[in-house]
């Protein structure tokens, strides 16, 4: 945004107001020499700078969230000219689109947190039904793997509660692609197989996925769940790439 330029000129964020002073009424400032000119410029810089920093703080909180939703549409110049006949049709499908959006947001959040394992999954001892799920379903993604590889992804777990979470183990579903290709659940293993997490502490579990040597390229996704902890769920995605040509 072009305002950032102005902000830099203002010399940093929210300076406290200088002691109040009565500025000369505008129009009289012209004939009173360079000093007044400088004071006027400083005063303008300070006030506009304050205004800019107020805007920027408000913006970063609110509008950016809205924009990530809107981003889906910004390159569609033809939207305006869409055939009105399919308009109502599209609105009936809205429920599906909302689901898509939520999944998109989860993925955006996960991929932007550069270290994938840094996103801790919250666990707690009691399956407190009143407790909101909070933050959606975490996504765990591996970097690319070749057929025949075994890849390892670390999953961070955090027990924010006051009770120990005992002897949890994990289950994975088959990982599937959109076209129905599959990596079987039996090719997915967890180390350690069972984990106990004390109150307000963290643990790590390594997820190992053995990619079959005949696996086709694609993004394979499935669910992870924890035994005894219904609220702990994550989406695991593994991207299989075409194996490099061997000489």
């Amino acid at each position, binding site marked *: 945004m072009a305002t950032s330029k102005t902000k830099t000129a203002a010399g940093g964020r929210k300076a406290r107001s200088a002691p109040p002073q*009565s500025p000369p*009424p505008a129009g009289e400032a012209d004939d009173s020499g360079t000093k007044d000119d400088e004071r006027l410029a400083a005063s*303008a810089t300070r006030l506009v700078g304050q*205004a800019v920093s107020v805007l920027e703080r408000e913006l970063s909180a609110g509008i950016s969230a809205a924009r990530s939703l809107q981003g889906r549409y*910004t390159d569609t110049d033809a*939207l*305006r000219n869409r055939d009105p006949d399919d308009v109502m049709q*599209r609105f009936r499908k809205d429920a599906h689109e909302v689901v898509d959006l939520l999944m998109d947001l989860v993925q955006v959040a996960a991929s932007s947190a550069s270290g994938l394992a840094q996103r801790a999954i919250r666990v707690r001892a009691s399956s407190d039904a009143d407790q909101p799920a909070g933050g959606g379903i975490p996504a765990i993604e591996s970097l690319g793997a070749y057929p025949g590889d075994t890849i390892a992804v670390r999953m961070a777990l955090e027990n924010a509660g006051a009770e120990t979470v005992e002897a949890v183990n994990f289950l994975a579903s088959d990982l599937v692609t959109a076209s129905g290709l599959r990596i079987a659940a039996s090719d997915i293993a967890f180390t350690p197989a069972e984990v106990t997490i004390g109150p307000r502490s963290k643990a790590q579990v390594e997820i190992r996925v053995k990619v079959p040597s005949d696996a086709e390229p694609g993004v394979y996704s499935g669910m992870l769940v924890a035994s005894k902890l219904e609220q702990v769920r994550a989406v695991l995605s593994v991207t299989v790439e075409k194996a490099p040509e061997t000489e």
Partner: protein
Amino acid sequence: MTPQERAEGVRHRLRDYKASADAAIARYLPRREPARHLYDLVRDYPGRGGKGLRPSLCMATCAAFGGSVELAARSAAAVEMFHNGFLIHDDIEDESDLRRGRPTLHAAHGIPLALNAGDAMFVLSMRPLLENLPEIGPGLAWMIFAEVEHMVRESVEGQAIELGWVRDNPARLEDADYFRMCLKKTCWYTTMHPIRIGALIGAGGSVPPDALNGFGYFLGLAFQIQDDLLNLVGELHKYGKEIGGDVLEGKRTLPLLHLLRTLPPARRRSVLRYLAKPRRRRTQAEMALILSEMEDFGSIAHARQTARFLAGAALEEFDQVYGQLPQSGHRDFLRDLVVFMIERDL
């Protein structure tokens, strides 16, 4: 072109845009029963002839970005209808007696009917947004709806901040506090969202609306400060509200904040005591004294100067963002509006 000619050009264009918006609004204000207790009241404020600033910004921006005035007419109508709903409720909240030179809606009809008319206005504003769908397509229509949702939410939050200040009487507020309140109460719905909506429609969603925030924000701040000044030192027959009304209402305007920071302690305490009283017990004599102190202590000058600085910032933003657009009367109107905003006397 002389400044007077520019101002006349702006007035002329405002009238044109407003006529298009009024025609659109008229389609959404029912003429049916209950007329005497509802729809006559609903049609009252839109018929009193405001400046039409919000719809003008929306439609001019749409046209400047390659669309047309007509394409933005529904969205502009919705924004203006929301604005009129806010005005009805604001007048109740502020206990104002006059609006555009005539009794406020609740002064004329009582609070219950006026409140309900405001509610009706909000609901009626939904319809043009729904009817955007076949005109601009579902993607854009949805984006505009999201814009309006954000606009209304910011406005009620800003209003809450201002009313909270009036009630709780904080002793010291900085200009930055005022800017924040003003961003939320005024800028989003007076300038920023009308501009964003116009650009989205005009460019078919291909312009990131955040790029336009700076221009709208500075313009909106300058507008609000000028509005506050006119309330303090304007002429009743032009301005149409009580002169000094903001002081009587205890509104935290830029000049009042400056005065509170500048007055000697004893006098400052007495102004704070005045502000702590219920509105009906604040006297005209006290108000007149505060007004004259605002002149004497440079508070009016401070606000005038701040408005000019902000107008300068708005012009700079304008040149950066709108500078790339092809020359058009719509684009020139938007630039000339900046100076008009701080020079206007109504």
